[in-house]
């Protein structure tokens, strides 16, 4: 194809992909994107479900004012504003009076089904003659208290006080650091509290950011109105939304800064080396094609792109720019007779082999079960392929056939050629370099530590974290991410398991293994437990007569008549237990929204824990109940990440084996194949060793970055191996590697300055790795590339 149409088609394609990306780009920063099913897929699903649950979507706002009344007034005003916001699912600032009626309507008719949590232990005694006398004395005691009137009203229908007992269970569960003042939640230090949940996941900035902006603006307005020009009121909040936004801002900011600075650095480098504005601009073509194609394909495949994937895409510059650099350098030093196309033909085998080995390495990652890593693998493979294709198809058409020689470039190439010649003369002493690298690898392997905590991939803003912890402490919120889960195929079995777990947790709390917990058991028992209560009450047809005698003996007047309502209730104990659907259909559902979850057809009932001081003991207490687990989201995620770090490392080695086989197939002799292969292997190992020896634990993204180092290292080795036997070609290729390495260090060195630990890991690993590769590539070429150089 002639130059003109080829360029036009390329430009049109780039424009179309650019438009598509601009219109469809949706960024995600949900860390669970890097989650894959572990040994128990239900727990992994639970972890994902938790990240999307109402618990994650709940925010706690805490308002401080000069006095609590003003804080309450501010909460009322803010709640009124937020309740109208489309992103707010619900708000709650105090006890809802509607719950009182709902509670009575639900529980009073079923009171006898919920007489005892431990019917086998308690009811034989309670319903015996002595137990009934004690029950009568308890009623007398209640009647002498200030709340006597309430008890007096209930006793005729409920002399065993089963309904009051349920009230007490609920009250105990409701208690916490919050008190109720003027109908509002108030902390011990007088702050008014507002709870709210967002409609969408807090990880989706498209929804979370406007909500946060609205919240800040409305609070400022309210503070200005109520406080002394806003000075007296202070808003603090707890919730993952702000952390997600902060992380996204950091990633976006880093990407922008890195892109700008690396571009400036690379432009300066190219201007010095090539002295041509055209050659400064042309590398943008394969980079743009690489990023645009990778983004387009990722959006088509996944619908959105994770922030880390895009950050990795920015890093792609480091690889993609190597191809035009190699082409320009050779073309300027020794242009082909038929122009750039001829130069390209000369270096094409190296470019193709380098790109193929890189793609093979990335494609190996595609076998991992992490969605995020698969996305990175696809992005990188597609990006590299597109960058190479545009380098080979478009750049020759855009390059001058007879470029003006650049003095600096030629001088540098000559010196590098001389350096290689000197290295050949001192071949034996070169062994020191790979031996040192190997020694570094061994030392690193001995000292390496792995960090699989997901939070290591995110840098939490310390101020936000401190504020979040203050607010959580004020409301005694349950610990995030640590809970007991009862899982079963059906609701009833799950409830039975939850009943059993509840009893164990009560014992664990009494033994100080945890501070407190919140369980669905407070609201709902299994049908089996309710039926057991009914069975005990119906077992003795003389129960009412015995009860009447016992109460009469304790001073009650004519109980057989006074308690006629109870006699009727005993005859008509409901056959149908209280069920979850009834609670979920009542106003009480807002108190229970987080307790139950569906796990692909199974029912999971969650119990939230606070202050677990002995996780092993709590786990031992519940884990022997079938289907019940102590679930530690952080630990579970760390386990999964750990397994997949190992898996990724294995895939890297599998990829390396594939690369080695490709090199052996190409060179058909071990010497050149190893000359191309070993620099990457040693450089990758040495870079991780340096990081490990610096005391930094390695995590999954170090392993991912290792793949990047290996890919580029193999490119370096391949480019040199392809040039072996021709001193001029070797010198030109060596200069290509220096420029490629410098440009990569620009890009990745700056990534190492990122405040995001994930980007930092990628930056340090790749930055060090390419430098080691540059040093080792000519060394192994001289040591193993047998073909002697001819001038």
């Amino acid at each position, binding site marked *: 194809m002639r130059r003109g149409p080829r360029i036009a088609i390329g430009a049109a394609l780039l424009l179309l992909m650019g438009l598509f990306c601009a219109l469809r780009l949706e960024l995600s920063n949900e860390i669970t994107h890097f989650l894959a099913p572990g040994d128990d897929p239900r727990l992994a699903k639970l972890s994902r479900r938790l990240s999307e649950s109402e618990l994650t979507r709940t925010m706690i706002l805490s308002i401080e004012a000069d006095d609590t009344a003003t804080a309450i007034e501010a909460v009322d005003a803010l709640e009124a504003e937020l309740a109208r916001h489309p992103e707010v699912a619900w708000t709650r600032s*105090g*006890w809802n*009076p509607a*719950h*009182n*009626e709902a*509670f*009575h309507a639900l529980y009073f008719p079923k009171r006898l089904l919920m007489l*005892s949590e*431990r019917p086998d232990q*308690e009811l034989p*005694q*309670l319903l015996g003659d002595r*137990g009934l006398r*004690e*029950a009568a*004395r*308890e009623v*007398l*005691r*209640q*009647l*002498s*208290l*200030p*709340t*006597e*009137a*309430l*008890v*007096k*009203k209930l*006793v*005729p229908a409920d002399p065993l006080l089963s309904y*009051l*007992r349920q*009230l*007490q269970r*609920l*009250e*105990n569960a409701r208690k916490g650091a919050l*008190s*109720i*003042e*003027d*109908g*509002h939640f108030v902390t011990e230090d007088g702050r008014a509290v507002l709870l709210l949940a967002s409609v969408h996941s807090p990880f989706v900035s498209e929804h979370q950011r406007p909500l946060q902006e609205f919240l800040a603006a409305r609070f400022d307005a309210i503070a200005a109105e109520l406080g002394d020009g806003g000075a007296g009121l202070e808003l603090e909040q707890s919730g993952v939304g702000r952390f997600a936004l902060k992380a996204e801002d950091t990633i976006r900011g880093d990407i922008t800064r890195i892109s700008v600075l690396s571009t400036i650095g690379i432009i300066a480098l190219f201007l010095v080396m090539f002295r041509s504005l055209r050659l400064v601009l042309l590398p943008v073509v394969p980079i743009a094609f690489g990023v645009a194609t990778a983004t387009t394909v990722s959006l088509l495949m996944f619908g959105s792109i994770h922030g880390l994937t895009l950050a990795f895409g920015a890093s792609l510059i480091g690889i993609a720019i190597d191809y035009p650099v190699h082409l320009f350098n050779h073309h300027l030093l020794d242009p082909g007779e038929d122009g750039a196309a001829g130069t390209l033909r000369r270096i094409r085998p190296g470019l193709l082999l380098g790109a193929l080995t890189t793609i093979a390495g990335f494609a190996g990652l595609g076998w991992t079960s992490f969605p995020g890593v698969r996305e990175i693998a696809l992005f990188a493979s597609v990006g590299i392929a597109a960058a190479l294709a545009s380098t080979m198809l478009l750049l020759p058409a855009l390059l001058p056939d007879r470029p003006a020689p650049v003095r600096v470039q030629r001088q540098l190439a000559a010196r590098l050629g001389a350096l290689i010649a000197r290295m050949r003369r001192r071949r034996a002493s070169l062994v020191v370099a790979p031996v040192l690298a190997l020694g570094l690898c061994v030392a690193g392997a001995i000292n390496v530590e792995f960090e699989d905590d997901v939070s290591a991939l995110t840098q939490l803003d310390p101020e936000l974290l401190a504020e979040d912890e203050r607010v959580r402490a004020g409301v005694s919120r349950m610990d995030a991410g640590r809970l007991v889960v009862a899982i079963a195929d059906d609701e009833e079995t799950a409830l039975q398991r939850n009943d059993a777990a509840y009893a164990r947790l009560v014992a664990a709390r009494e033994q100080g293994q945890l501070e407190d917990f919140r369980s669905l058991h407070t609201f709902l028992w299994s049908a089996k437990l309710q039926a057991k209560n009914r069975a005990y009450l119906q077992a003795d047809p003389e129960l009412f007569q015995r009860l009447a005698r016992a109460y009469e003996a304790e*001073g*009650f*007047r004519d109980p057989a008549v*006074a308690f006629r309502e109870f006699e009727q209730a005993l005859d008509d104990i409901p056959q149908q237990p209280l069920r979850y659907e009834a609670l979920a259909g009542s106003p009480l559902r807002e108190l229970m929204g987080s307790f139950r979850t569906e796990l692909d057809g199974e029912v999971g009932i969650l119990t939230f824990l606070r202050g677990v001081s002995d996780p092993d003991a709590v786990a031992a207490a519940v884990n022997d109940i079938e289907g019940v687990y102590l679930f530690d989201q952080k630990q579970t995620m760390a386990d999964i990440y750990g397994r997949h770090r190992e898996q990724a490392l294995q895939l890297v080695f599998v990829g390396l084996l594939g690369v080695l086989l490709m090199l052996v197939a190409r060179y058909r002799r071990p010497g050149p194949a190893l000359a191309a292969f070993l620099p990457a292997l040693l450089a990758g190992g040495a870079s991780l060793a340096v990081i490990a020896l610096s005391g930094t634990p390695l995590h999954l993204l170090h392993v991912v970055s290792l793949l990047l180092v290996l890919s580029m290292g193999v490119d370096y080795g391949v480019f040199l191996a392809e040039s072996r036997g021709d001193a001029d070609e070797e010198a030109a290729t060596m200069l290509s590697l220096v420029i490629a390495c410098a440009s990569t260090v620009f890009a990745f060195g700056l990534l190492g300055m990122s405040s995001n630990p994930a980007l930092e890991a990628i930056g340090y690993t790749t930055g060090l790795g390419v430098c080691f590769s540059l040093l080792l590539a000519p060394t192994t070429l001289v040591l193993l590339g047998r073909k002697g150089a001819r001038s």
Partner: protein
Amino acid sequence: MRSLHGFRARGLRLALRGPAVGVVVATALAPAVAPAVAVAAPPAKKAAAPNVERLLAEFAKMPGLYAKFREEKHMALLAAPLVNEGTLHFSRGRLARHTKAPMKSSVVIDADRIQFGDESGREQVELAGNPIVRLFVDSFVKILAGDRTALERIYDMSFTAAGDGSGGWKLVLRPKVDPLDKVIDRMELEGTDLVVAKIVMVEKGGDETVTTFTDVDVNRRYSKAEADRVFRVLGK
């Protein structure tokens, strides 16, 4: 059996449904009223003839109060009355009732809330968020405040002086506003001259609470430390 017995009627906010709240508040407050009226009845002022205006006006001047009470609850449920004994305290708008026998419990009321407590815990009801509770509290507080206008809005009042020259009298308050009138039939305050000896609260169901007062100190002034101790409910 302790797990089934030995709890108190907590979850009050949940339980306070409709008129039930009035019963709780009314029975908790009833003993507080009479000695407060007695404040205005020191024997030295016996010369003046008793009437409603004087009773209420003298009460409004009260600086502080201490009294012992004995309360008998006559319930249809029980063959014999339940008897409570304890002390009453009033100062600067705060009212405390501490029951000493047969079981310890306490009630404290201030402008914002009513609190209940015993050895097993405490409860409180915010008045601002509970207009019904506020009405019941006000129905008593207005007596303490000597606010005849407000009382006449809540009660039909009838004052009867004994015709035998003994100085005896009886003030009957019948609620006329909903839901107070659904809970309380009447309150009867009885005394001689300006000294109230007994108050009887009759509930709609027929149950009665009869409270008598002794050792009334109408000029009691509480130090800060003493007030902090007295106007605090039992329980955690």
